[in-house]
């Protein structure tokens, strides 16, 4: 180090937040006696302009080259003080903060011990900062294009937002049409807008936008690289139809020689059938048919007369199509892969899959949809029309046996379906809920509306649905057994139709994509945001953002808000064109590296390479996230880390534990051995084994 450390210590009162519990003057006085400390002051609000000016003046006038601020958590004001250092001409990393508010003044009441602790923390920071070195923030270039994974409402909205900002978007959707789950819904709560009416224009806009490349029937196979420079391999499934030629006239579907519409139509939740050649759904975008090789006779039996090819005036069918891979380079990625409805079969007590007239809410969305299998008529699987309907809330949600979380949308979905079923069938509708959660805008009002619809509300979790008639009035009915917790009665309610309001589960393959993208999942299996409140669309992998239900259950409005936010993050990166690399990254000191490669498997991000000619390991700073696992694991002590170097931590320990005046002022250029070398003695080891 060129100059001897000249350290300034600044103790903040934080109004009375700190000074009420910590004797700040004493802390400053104690700091003054520490080695290398040139000035120690305390002030009411260190983070105020006046406080910052105080620091800056000392830097200039006293020639400070290190600063310690004893104040709040570095999570809060470290950036503020770093900026202050920078504008005073000091490298921002020559700062160390001592957290004497959150981790001292706020959790203690005894002034004496809190003050002693503050002194310890300041002393540790002083020892540490002496070994700080100037670090340069390096910049990495950011590619302007953005990849959006998932073509549901969140993915479409994110793609359109980015595209409207003039950046190019690749939108990758697994199904052969965009639209996602929202395309299935009949109406949306609480406004009762027709779902398709509000979504269709967006679908068209995505299809026609000059800045959007839309790939349906496609999946992200591999992603590598880092923020600003991601490379992705997109696998495109064969649909056996040329997307550019097909106009969606459906003559091929009519002509198909497959006997009957026997293949369960996934879009209609299996409530209707389709042929092997099909349009995913009536308003699919792109409006292009696809061939299902699992059922098409050309594949299953090795051939048919191919009447589909004969009738196609555009010669769009291509049975020789094979899957192919597209490789793209993007600067950031928005993940909007959505959710899976909870599998109602798991909740065996409700008889889904046993009693035909037990439906899931997703099925009912199709059943009451004018473009659904019954053209909106509520006709049950057994051909009858229901006189009484039971709507069961929280199926699979708020349940430790299945999903412990609240799926957030089910109460409103159930209210909406109750309202629509009541309106369209005139049936008696019973709602069985545990707690009514209608917290969104306009939602409580909607609840009030349904309360006045004549719909019946029973507060209680249904224990079972069963066709056991205890009374003649229950013959031929499905009986719902529930404790009406409001009246205190155990009730049996006979109905013709049961609607299970299924919650949201993470997609069953979400873990695969999580690994591909190297993002985290929370305990529930949904993708984990960087910070629940302050970075809700970021992930811990820079440049990868999440939106919609892949992050957790939410309704359409929240999905769209989040998608807009994720798009804004992607746009910001793209527009800025460069990215600041946090200089906490690790680097290998080549002279010390033995080439043992112990560090390589320790790196979760594959940032460590091995250069054959020199026989040394190397760290790619762009991939390194600064976790320090390799630093701790290197047997030769050859890996150094910015801001978290061994020497700095040892110095912090010395300051914390050894008391005033006896601190280490070890050189920053090498690994500082501990004050006392610890070696298990033969005696101690031997006796331990005995």
């Amino acid at each position, binding site marked *: 180090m060129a100059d001897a450390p000249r350290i300034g210590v600044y103790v903040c009162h934080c109004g009375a937040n700190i000074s009420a519990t910590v004797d700040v003057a004493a802390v400053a006085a104690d700091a003054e006696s520490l080695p290398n400390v040139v000035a120690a002051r305390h002030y009411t609000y260190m983070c105020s302009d006046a406080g910052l000016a105080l620091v800056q003046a000392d830097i200039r006038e006293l020639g400070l080259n290190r600063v310690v601020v004893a104040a709040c958590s570095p999570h809060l004001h470290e950036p503020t003080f770093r900026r202050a250092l920078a504008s005073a001409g000091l490298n921002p990393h020559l700062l160390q903060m001592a957290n004497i508010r959150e981790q001292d003044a706020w959790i203690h009441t005894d002034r004496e011990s809190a003050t002693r602790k503050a002194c310890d923390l300041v002393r540790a920071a002083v020892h540490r900062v002496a070994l700080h070195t100037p670090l340069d923030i390096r910049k990495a270039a950011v590619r302007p294009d953005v990849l959006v994974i998932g073509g549901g409402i969140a993915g479409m909205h994110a793609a359109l937002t980015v595209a409207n900002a003039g950046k190019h978007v690749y939108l990758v959707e697994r199904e052969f049409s965009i639209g996602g789950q929202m395309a299935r819904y009949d109406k949306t709560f609480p406004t009762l807008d027709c779902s398709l009416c509000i979504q269709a224009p967006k679908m068209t806009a995505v299809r026609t936008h000059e800045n959007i490349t839309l790939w349906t029937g496609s999946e992200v196979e591999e992603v590598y690289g880092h923020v600003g420079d991601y490379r992705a391999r997109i696998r495109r499934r064969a649909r056996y139809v040329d997307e550019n030629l097909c106009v969606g006239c459906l003559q091929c579907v009519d002509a198909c020689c497959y006997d009957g519409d026997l293949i369960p139509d996934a879009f209609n939740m299996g409530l209707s059938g389709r042929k092997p050649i099909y349009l995913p759904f009536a308003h699919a975008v792109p409006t292009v048919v696809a061939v299902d090789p699992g059922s098409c006779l050309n594949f299953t039996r090795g051939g048919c007369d191919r009447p589909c090819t004969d009738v196609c005036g555009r010669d769009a069918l291509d049975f020789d199509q094979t899957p192919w891979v597209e490789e793209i380079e993007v600067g950031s990625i928005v993940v909007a892969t959505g959710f899976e409805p909870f599998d109602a079969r798991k909740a065996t*007590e409700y008889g889904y899959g046993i009693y035909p007239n037990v439906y899931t809410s997703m099925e009912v969305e199709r059943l009451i949809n004018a473009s659904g299998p019954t053209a909106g008529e509520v006709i049950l699987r057994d051909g009858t029309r229901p006189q009484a309907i039971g709507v069961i809330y*929280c199926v699979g949600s*708020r*349940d*430790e*046996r299945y999903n412990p979380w609240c799926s957030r949308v089910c109460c409103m979905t159930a209210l909406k379906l109750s309202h629509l079923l009541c309106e369209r069938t005139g049936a008696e509708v019973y709602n069985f809920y*545990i*707690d009514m959660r209608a917290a969104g805008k306009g939602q409580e009002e909607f609840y009030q509306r349904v309360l006045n619809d004549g719909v019946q509300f029973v*507060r*209680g*979790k*249904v*224990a*079972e649905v069963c066709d056991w008639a205890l009374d003649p009035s229950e013959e031929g009915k499905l009986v719902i*057994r*529930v*404790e*009406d*917790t409001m009246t*205190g009665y*155990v009730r049996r309610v006979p109905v013709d139709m049961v609607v299970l309001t299924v919650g949201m589960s993470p997609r069953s393959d979400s873990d695969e994509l999580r690994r591909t993208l190297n993002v985290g999942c929370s305990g529930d299996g949904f993708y984990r945001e960087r910070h629940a409140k302050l970075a809700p669309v970021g992930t811990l992998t820079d440049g990868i953002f999440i939106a919609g239900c892949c992050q957790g259950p939410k309704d359409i409005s929240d999905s769209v808000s989040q998608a807009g936010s994720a798009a804004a993050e992607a746009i910001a990166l793209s527009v800025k064109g460069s990215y600041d690399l946090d200089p906490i990254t690790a680097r290998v000191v080549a002279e010390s590296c033995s080439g043992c490669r112990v560090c390589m498997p320790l790196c979760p991000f594959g940032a460590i390479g091995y250069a054959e000619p020199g026989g040394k390991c190397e760290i790619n700073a762009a991939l390194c996230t600064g976790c320090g696992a390799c630093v701790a694991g290197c047997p030769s002590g050859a890996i150094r880390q910015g801001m978290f170097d061994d020497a700095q931590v040892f110095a912090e320990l010395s300051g914390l534990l050894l008391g005033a005046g006896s601190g280490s002022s070890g050189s920053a250029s090498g690994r500082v051995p501990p004050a006392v070398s610890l070696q298990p003695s033969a005696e101690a080891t031997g006796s331990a084994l005995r």
Partner: protein
Amino acid sequence: MRRDARDKLSEDAGPVPVQSRPAIRRELKLQREADGAWLGKFADLPGCERIASCTQCGACSAACPLSIYMDVTPRRLMALVRSGFRSEALKSRSIWLCTSCYACVAACPQKISVADLMFALKREAIETRVYPKRFAVPVLSDEFMNMVRTRGRSSDFWLAARMTLRSSPAALFGMAAIGWRLWRAGRLRLSMEGIHLLAEFQRASLARKDAA
């Protein structure tokens, strides 16, 4: 009841001076009647550690085949326990109606072992002697346990006979017909077997009793 009459039923009055029929009972719970420490006793009882997670959804009551006979449904019992209304919970008939069929446990979305709570309440009711006299269920338990403690095994025949004698001797006649039919089918064993390691077991039982 007229409004002015109701106003007279002030909450701090002593016995309610109402002669009208049907009888009007005052029901008001003062917080001092609640045993705030009671819930804590269950926290480390096997199976009961999740009682505090109860959301009062009522799945236990709905699944219970006997809740329709109960004065307090399992869900309400759970609420009584959580609020510390100890004597109300222990005096309820409900705990004696439980057959431990575990339907409530299977139905509970919070994985609370309601059946184990029932056992715990029954035990406490027996310990504090608040169950009704001549009530057959606790008598059966008592007889069962005495039999096993002394002989190591139980016998259907003797158990039924003793329990009936203690709870409702008159019913013995009704039992005779059933007994006769079982006897004819070779299903009644009048001899009672003891087991060889009994002394050892009794010692351990006693040791624990002494310790407690």
